[in-house]
């Protein structure tokens, strides 16, 4: 691990209730910013569709009666080795050296979609109206803002979460809340088989481990 800063989210699957508050607050903040809107298609008719940086999905696991419903927020994971960055032909996709955030320069993007092919997580969405690739910015325009009170300099999704399922911090700093949560609660990365080293981590459901352990005892 490098000693540079790597900002990331740590998502606690134990407490996410699937309310989509992170989705709507993300959309609200990022569609209103200077970087341009996240446009919606057919917003008030059949098959509404639009650009979002963050989605909450739902999964089930287990066999009755030991089943679990898991709400699973998914946004850009800000990989330490992001496969989407080197493939970009214009240099519009880049990873910031100072804090590890993966960003798109909308003024350089030609809308070829190649970076989205090179992301195994489906974290990038081409904005249909603006025809540029968009993705989670970790609210880069919030977290360093000097006009916001110190306590609000966090990604919009983190502030909106009613159950504090989202922890924001530097995963390279062993003292940060994020690193400590990963360390203490066995935070894991998505699709480790592709060696992208996502910076975002997920905290596993402890109830599932309890069930698995109980099974072994039987």
């Amino acid at each position: 691990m490098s000693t540079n800063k790597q900002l990331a989210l740590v998502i606690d699957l134990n407490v996410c209730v699937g309310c989509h508050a992170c989705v709507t607050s993300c959309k609200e903040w990022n569609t209103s910013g200077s970087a341009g809107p996240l446009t919606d298609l057919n917003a008030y008719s059949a098959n509404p569709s639009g650009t979002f940086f963050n989605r909450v999905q739902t999964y089930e696991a287990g066999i009755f009666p030991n089943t679990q419903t898991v709400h699973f927020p998914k946004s850009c994971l800000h990989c330490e080795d992001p496969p989407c960055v080197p493939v970009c032909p214009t240099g519009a996709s880049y990873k910031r050296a100072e804090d590890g955030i993966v960003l798109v320069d909308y003024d350089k993007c030609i809308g070829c979609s190649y970076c989205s092919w090179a992301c195994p997580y489906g974290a990038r969405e081409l904005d249909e109206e603006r025809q540029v690739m968009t993705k989670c910015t970790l609210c880069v325009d919030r977290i360093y803002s000097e006009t916001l009170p110190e306590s609000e300099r966090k990604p919009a999704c983190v502030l909106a979460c009613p159950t504090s399922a989202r922890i924001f911090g530097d995963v390279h700093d062993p003292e940060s809340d994020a690193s400590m949560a990963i360390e203490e609660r066995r935070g894991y990365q998505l699709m480790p088989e592709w060696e992208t080293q996502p910076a975002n981590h997920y905290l596993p459901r402890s109830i599932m481990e309890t069930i698995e352990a109980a099974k072994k005892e039987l």
Partner: protein
Amino acid sequence: MRPQYSIIFLTTMIGMAQGLLFSVSILNFRTDAISPDFLSSVIFPIAIILLIGGLVASFFHLGHPERAWRSAMMWRTSWLSREVIALPLVILLALIGLYFSLNDHTPQWLWISLMISCLILWICTAKIYQCIRFIQEWSHPTTLLNFFLLGLASGWLLLTALVNLFKQSIPSANNTFLIIVSLLMTFCAFNLKLWIWNRNRGLKPKSNLASATGIKGQNIRQTSMGLMGGSFNTREFFHHQTDRVIANIRKIILLCAYIVPMILLAFSIGSVLPKIYLCLAVIIQFIGLICERWLFFAEANHPQNLYYQRVS
């Protein structure tokens, strides 16, 4: 993946042009085997039209075509960027070839540079797809070999047809030789395609819902993808066709790209009017190649689809 016609036309048209230029370079680089008149009035103009046609088609793929010049910037890391440089280079060399052939002699260095630049362009084009490690259908050296063999076979077939159509004779390569080489190339490409399809059938996806979500427990299934009206993720990464359509396209590919052209080539040997068979073979094979490229995209399974399985 969702097949996009801009990329399908780009890769098939420039592949054919590269094959044509490569074939002419092989025949011509020792001595001027093909007459300069034929080169300047037929071969180079057709190659240039195909290359520029492909280049124009590629612009329809972009959300911001007016910024396309920027795509040559990241040649250090991006194969797409390298292709953006290699394609105009081939066009430039073909234009130089046109200039020289108008002046009756094309120097050896030009044929060698044409061969090398065509090879580089094949590598760049194929590597765009091959370098995406988690699309397992693409991430294999046969992706490059398939682009190369199909481009070469279609280009050589086009050369054979043009030689017959314009009643040319090449001293070092008579008509039967051209046709037999064409047959052999198509046969090799045919076998490679069968091998690739066989490999694709046997592929075990490295990612699954357990690795994609990290959820512990058996029988993981999605109950909601988090959206109901579709999104970029549901549009871009799937071909949106039924299995039956895919099976039919597979049959069209086998017939049009390989089997029918091979039969027509075989019939053209010793026939009274070989040019009719050969021109028909070129047209049918090109239709087959478009279908082949369509399926190349359609049969690529992207792991992001694991996250988009059920609306609710």
